[in-house]
């Protein structure tokens, strides 16, 4: 080529039909969070059968799991296939403290955080220095370790698990009524989603995405990749552990059967389907993954097969997920973070 190409103006996003653009505007609007919360808040008014409350509470807990995994997989690009292990660690830690030592459930939360952070360090420590593939399979092994250990120890109740976990209560007020509990979970999960989103938009979050996009470049720019990856991994672990506390409080009984690889894979499914990295996308993905099987109870045999096929199809045809994260900074913050006038942007 003799003529050098001039810089092309950025192409409009592909497949941007009217509907697509409308959906994008909705998903990128700053009102998506409050509107989602509002919908969650009025849901029990529309339908309040015990079954519906149960499904909706489970869905919210699942949202929390998905948002936690999104930090690890979606933001930092580390594939964690044993995420249910942290869920289990949280549920078992709080369950054991609450039933054997009769701690109130709220008091177990600091202990849960400590234990999940330790678990994150034990697994992440050796593996985060290596190629990302190793992390995937080591986390898979770790998931099995936790499940088999819970199955064999007597303090975890063996295969029967732990039962009689008290529900949440604050200052002597019992919150075990299903509707009340739903609202408590809604508030906690909303805080968790918001917290994750704040983390994602912080300096640390930018470092996570940098590592996902190009780890070598990130390191060359002075990002301490090991420490930053560890931070993502531990944040994911804490989110998972806290979701485990809610899970124990909801069901009042936990057993190793709840923390299989299937559970980890479903959370991953939610993250991938929703669009890795985008918080609204992941929340919708999580709701989709939990609600759809309830709607298709009769097809239970086919649904996991369909999930597997769907993972492949989504990755091949639409690797950015159904609702991808935006990769550009919005205009309203771009002005603030521009470092000098006439900045050259490279896309």
């Amino acid at each position, binding site marked *: 080529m003799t003529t050098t190409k001039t810089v092309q103006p950025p192409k409009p996003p592909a497949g941007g039909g009217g509907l697509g653009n409308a959906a994008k505007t909705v998903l990128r609007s700053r009102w998506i969070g409050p509107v989602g919360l509002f919908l969650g808040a009025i849901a029990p008014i529309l339908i309040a059968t015990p079954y519906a409350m149960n499904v909706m509470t489970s869905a919210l807990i699942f949202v929390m799991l998905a948002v936690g995994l999104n930090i690890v997989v979606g933001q930092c690009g580390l594939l964690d*296939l044993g995420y249910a292990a942290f869920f289990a660690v949280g549920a078992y830690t709080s369950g054991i403290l609450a039933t054997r030592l009769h701690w109130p459930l709220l008091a177990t939360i600091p202990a849960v955080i400590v234990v999940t952070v330790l678990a994150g360090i034990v697994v992440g420590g050796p593996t985060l220095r290596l190629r990302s593939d190793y992390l995937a*399979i080591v986390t898979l092994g770790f998931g099995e*370790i936790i499940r088999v250990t819970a199955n*064999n120890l007597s303090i975890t109740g063996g295969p029967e698990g732990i039962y009689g976990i008290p529900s949440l209560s604050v200052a002597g007020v019992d919150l075990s009524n299903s509707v009340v509990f739903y609202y408590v979970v809604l508030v906690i999960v909303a805080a968790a989603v918001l917290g994750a989103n704040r983390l994602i938009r912080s300096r640390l979050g930018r470092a996570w995405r940098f590592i996902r996009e190009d780890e070598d470049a990130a390191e060359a720019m002075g990002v301490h990749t090991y420490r930053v990856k560890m931070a993502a991994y531990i944040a994911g672990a804490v989110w998972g552990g806290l979701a485990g506390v809610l899970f124990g409080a909801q069901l009042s009984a936990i057993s190793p059967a709840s923390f299989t690889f299937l559970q980890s894979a479903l959370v991953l499914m939610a993250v991938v389907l929703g669009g890795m990295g985008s918080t609204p996308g992941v929340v919708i993905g999580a709701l989709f993954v939990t609600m759809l099987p309830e709607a298709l109870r009769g097809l239970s045999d086919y649904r996991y*097969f369909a999930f597997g096929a*769907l993972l*492949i199809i989504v990755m091949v045809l639409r690797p950015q997920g159904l609702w991808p994260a935006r990769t550009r900074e919005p205009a309203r913050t771009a002005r603030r973070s521009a470092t000098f006038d006439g900045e050259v942007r490279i896309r």
Partner: protein
Amino acid sequence: MTQIIWNGLFVGSFYALVALGYSMVYGIMKLLNFAHGDLYMLGAFIGFALLTSFSGFTATLSLVALLVVLLLSMVGTGLAGVAIERIAYRPLRSAPRLSLLITAVGASFALEYGMRIIAGPNPQVYPVRLGGSSVHVLGARIGVAQLVLIGVAIALMVTLNAMVMRSRQGRAMRAIALDPVAARLMGVDVNRVIAMAFFIGSALAGAAGVMAGSYYGSINFLMGFIIGLKAFTAAVIGGIGSFKGAMLGGVVLGLLESFGTHFLGGQWRDVFAFAFLILFLTVRPTGLLGERVTERV
């Protein structure tokens, strides 16, 4: 003591067979094929289907017939491996590694639950059961069937090693493992060679599946999950990407598990193996025979 060692060697030869395929695909494509363990499961089920449809002449179901079934199942799983590569991995070869890992998980899921739809969730009983006579060597009870299975495993591994080291196709594979771009420039048909690697690796896993089915007698749709993890552990212990390492790693893992089971009890076997994997990755991530690899940017 001899019994423990023998048990370890026997289980280890299964791990080695599955680990070989894992390691081979990893060496060539730098991809962890999560569906590899499920190809082992698929092999066991294809063998099961063939054996039940031939059960009209069960009386003549000898070791020879079993070997024929073994070969047919190997072809079947090999083709399945090629299909998986074509559908799930090839379109994403230039995509970020994370996408490939996720499709690999999807392929594994689809195989497991696809088989559940076809064969049902309950374990199936293999129509043949290798048991029979045994000999005593140095205080260990060694089954004749075990000897035959180990013999088959060793024969398969030796054949593969010869193929990779001596044949033209094997040289192409090693060339791609070393540098795919340069190999393509030298006229190697990269797609074909990768498909062949998948065929061979999957066929080995399928062979291990049939052998495990006919030895242990019971198969189910999730049987590949744990063995896939174990095979990866074996491949890492030996040095992933290295053929001899995969074989060595399989045997080492088998022995470790055998001793671990003896001293800690059988229910801790898997925990022991995976904890060892994590420990091993901290101490020597390149494996026993692996070379230190510098990643190119």
